[in-house]
């Protein structure tokens, strides 16, 4: 793979490339969307994507914040008795439930017409991260999620400034606990290590300076209320020192962004997220980081280069990314023909596949790549496939119905379409032979269901 950012030419652009672009820049595309993306061409498709829109989809992305209505009733079931000894069980369950409600609403956005926008929001959530477990406020998490949506493909520097003084991050990084005497270094370190410069690229004294400079923020916590306008930020924003703090932080962040190395971390993270977990070529990082700085930190400019580069469509990239659990779940909905995010399937996925939205394990977000897959999570993916199989059966326009009609007309071309729809990467000849034999035996819609379940339990299906 070359190291420059040479562009893919019009001549080289294929349907396979279109399908790849939609998988990575969004959460995959339907047959029609891939067709449309191919026809309007790469440049026009990337344009749509960088405006948050899914090529080929008539529905526009929803840009207002997610606004879930929380259930008032706390679910009870006999199973819950067994985990006794937790004094504030009710409290715990209430939070579980709020978190899950948030997750469902966000997942639905990903499945709807704003796939590319929500993919970008997911990127920011993994990089400038906060977790519900620490923040314990649905309102704060929604605010942060919306901040990511508003900035999305926009100004990285401004987003860092804004997200740090947003309540979720204030709680997550103990910013409000930072006092002038013996300051707490948590937030200063993460600002430099995870948000801007990267490990090893900043002097320790800079941490101490930041920790000393940003002190005395106050945040009054309040029970979540609907609508979220009522979240009480007065405790923080009306504080006499707040405007000063904001100014000082803004200056500090400007000075961090003035450091030549700034931008490289973001480029590396973008590359990892959208392109490949393999180690990124340093020349390419420098090239893109330079572009990012020149564009006044506009993320769209870097992504525009990436999505149109030959490198993005290289054989070592296409079909070579292990699906994140969220990608797996949303993509499986699209592939099986389920337009509504299924609560049971989602709950299972959020609990067992290693990626619980709004609740990353630590300040570096999710480590992704090969760490998504181990014996436990792979088994859980098989189970989720089985759940999605049941979800599929209940759909009017299910994939099993569609492919049954195709396969009964012509088993070869039907199989071709089936494999295209469900496999992330090309199959070995042995497996193609087996599938061909199976395709010939299909006699009912139910057979197709079983067939699809097999396909979803292959290693190839774990890729995108």
């Amino acid at each position, binding site marked *: 793979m070359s190291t420059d950012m040479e562009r893919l030419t019009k001549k080289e652009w294929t349907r396979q490339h279109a399908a790849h672009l939609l998988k990575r820049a969004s959460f995959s595309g339907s047959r029609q969307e891939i067709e449309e993306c191919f026809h309007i061409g790469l440049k026009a498709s990337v344009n749509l994507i960088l405006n948050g829109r899914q090529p080929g989809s008539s529905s526009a992305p929803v840009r207002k914040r997610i606004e879930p209505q929380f259930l008032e009733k706390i679910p009870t079931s006999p199973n*819950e008795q067994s985990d006794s000894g937790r004094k504030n069980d009710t409290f715990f369950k209430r939070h579980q439930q709020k978190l899950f409600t948030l997750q469902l609403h966000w997942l639905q956005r990903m499945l709807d017409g704003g796939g590319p926008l929500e993919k970008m929001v997911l990127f920011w959530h993994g990089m400038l991260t906060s977790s519900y477990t620490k923040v314990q406020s649905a309102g704060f998490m929604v605010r942060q999620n919306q901040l990511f949506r508003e900035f999305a493909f926009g100004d990285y520097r401004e987003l860092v400034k804004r997200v740090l003084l947003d309540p979720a991050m204030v709680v997550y990084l*103990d910013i409000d606990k930072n006092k002038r005497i013996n300051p707490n270094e948590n937030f200063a370190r993460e600002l430099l290590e995870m948000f801007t410069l990267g490990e090893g690229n900043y002097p320790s004294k800079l941490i101490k300076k930041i920790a000393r400079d940003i002190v005395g923020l106050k945040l009054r916590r309040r029970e979540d209320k609907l609508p979220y306008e009522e979240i009480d930020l007065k405790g923080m924003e009306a504080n006499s020192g707040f405007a000063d703090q904001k100014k000082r932080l803004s200056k500090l962040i400007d000075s961090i962004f003035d450091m030549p190395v700034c931008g490289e971390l973001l480029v590396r993270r973008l590359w990892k997220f959208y392109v490949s977990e393999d180690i990124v070529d340093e020349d390419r990082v420098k090239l893109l980081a330079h572009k990012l700085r020149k564009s006044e930190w506009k993320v769209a400019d870097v992504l525009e280069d990436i999505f149109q580069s030959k490198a993005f469509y290289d054989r070592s990239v296409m079909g070579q990314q292990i699906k994140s659990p969220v990608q797996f779940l949303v993509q499986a909905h699209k592939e099986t023909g389920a337009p509504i995010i299924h609560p049971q399937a989602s709950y299972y996925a959020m*609990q*067992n596949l290693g990626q619980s939205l709004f609740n990353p394990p630590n300040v570096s977000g999710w480590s992704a790549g090969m760490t998504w897959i181990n014996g436990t999570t792979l088994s859980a993916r098989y189970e989720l496939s089985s759940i999605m199989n049941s979800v599929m059966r209940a759909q009017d326009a299910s994939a099993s119905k569609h492919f049954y009609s195709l396969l009964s007309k012509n088993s070869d071309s039907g199989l071709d379409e089936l494999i295209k729809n469900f496999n992330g990467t090309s199959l070995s000849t042995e497996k193609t032979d087996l599938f061909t034999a199976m395709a010939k035996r299909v006699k009912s819609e139910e057979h197709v269901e079983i067939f699809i379940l097999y396909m979803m339990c292959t290693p190839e299906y774990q890729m995108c």
Partner: protein
Amino acid sequence: MNRKNEIARREFMKTGMLASFSLPSLLSFSANAAPALLPRISAKHKTLVIIQLDGGNDGLNTVVPWGNSRYYRARRNIAIKETDVLKFTGVKAAEGLGVHTEMDYFTELFQEGSLAVINNVGYEQPNRSHFKSGAIWESGLDDAVLGSEDEIRNHTGWLGRYFDKHCAGESNLVGAYYGSSPLAMRGNAFSGTSISDLQSQPFGFMKLGEEMSMHPAFRKMQEAEKSQKGVSGNKVDFVRNVAAETQTSTDQMRKFLAEVKERGGGFPSTGLGKQLGMISELIMNGGDTRVYLAKIGGFDTHSNQAAKHAKLWKEITDALRAFMGRMKASGLANDVAVMTYSEFGRQLNENGTKGTDHGAAAPMFVIGGGVKGGIFGKPPALKGDKITNYGGLSYEIDFRSVYKSILEQYLKVETTGIISEKYPALKLF
């Protein structure tokens, strides 16, 4: 409707949102099994159990240097009061040292000579990122070959290299872990087996797998997967390997647990208690696993440390007491060793929020397994060049010297290619 669909529906119901807010443990431990009545078990091999303290454990409030006034000056709010320290006695090297109030079992272990306390363990140029420092500890590589965190994570881990060199031909059950797939157990031919869900969701997938394998085509497909194992080293092959190994090792684990004779029991129902309970069950029934990795998180105590830290060490102490008690009663005390570690210690001075920030060196514990009990290395001096430029503790014993001691003197294997010769083995056994 065929059987497959019923299974699918059952799985579906089982995983319903309301029913699974807390999953019951299906492997019910018989809580009253009296340890004294347990039959003696003869071990096929030595077993190492690692307890990872995730987040950076504050070493100074774990092994407390109560004899050093600098400790009290640096920690006005969070120091463990001299009267609350459980002091080590009987050995000169232990003078002025003791453990946290919650760690009473550690003083018992120390008294009976089965606890090694290794002071000031760390490495040159300590890194204060959780992730990079964690990767350094897990890789166990020579400083000279470490690079960025990504580069380190592309290497093998210290246990993976041990499996590659000394367990060739065995199954992936030689390593078993809780949590996500650890770098430490990643070798060229091994990656370890996850045991996280043995308790909470026993083999739900395997029922499905069984149903599916009844279909001849699926069985054939599985065989095809196995024959393609490890062809090109790309990502799909990685998944394919995990799939094949998962099938093999879950099959084995299932068979093993079906024939289990000895049950665990009497373990606290905490996170670590459950992990050590399951591990004890696997060990007592003669499992093939050489190294278990248990995990407890929450050590990143930047604020209001005292209560959090006390709770964590109480959880460890209680779980360990149950575990070692069980091992002793089964006659396995010398065949099982426990090692604790954390990615770094914390700074000497408390911060402004009654907590501590990321530091460097910290003590490690090695317990049982015929360890030479006692104190290794000097107590932390807390002054001069024993403090790093940002207030962490300088290291005196390299962590790879601890690994090497365990490998060479306890597991009795040769360590060329596993741990660099740069790091001499401590004499822990």
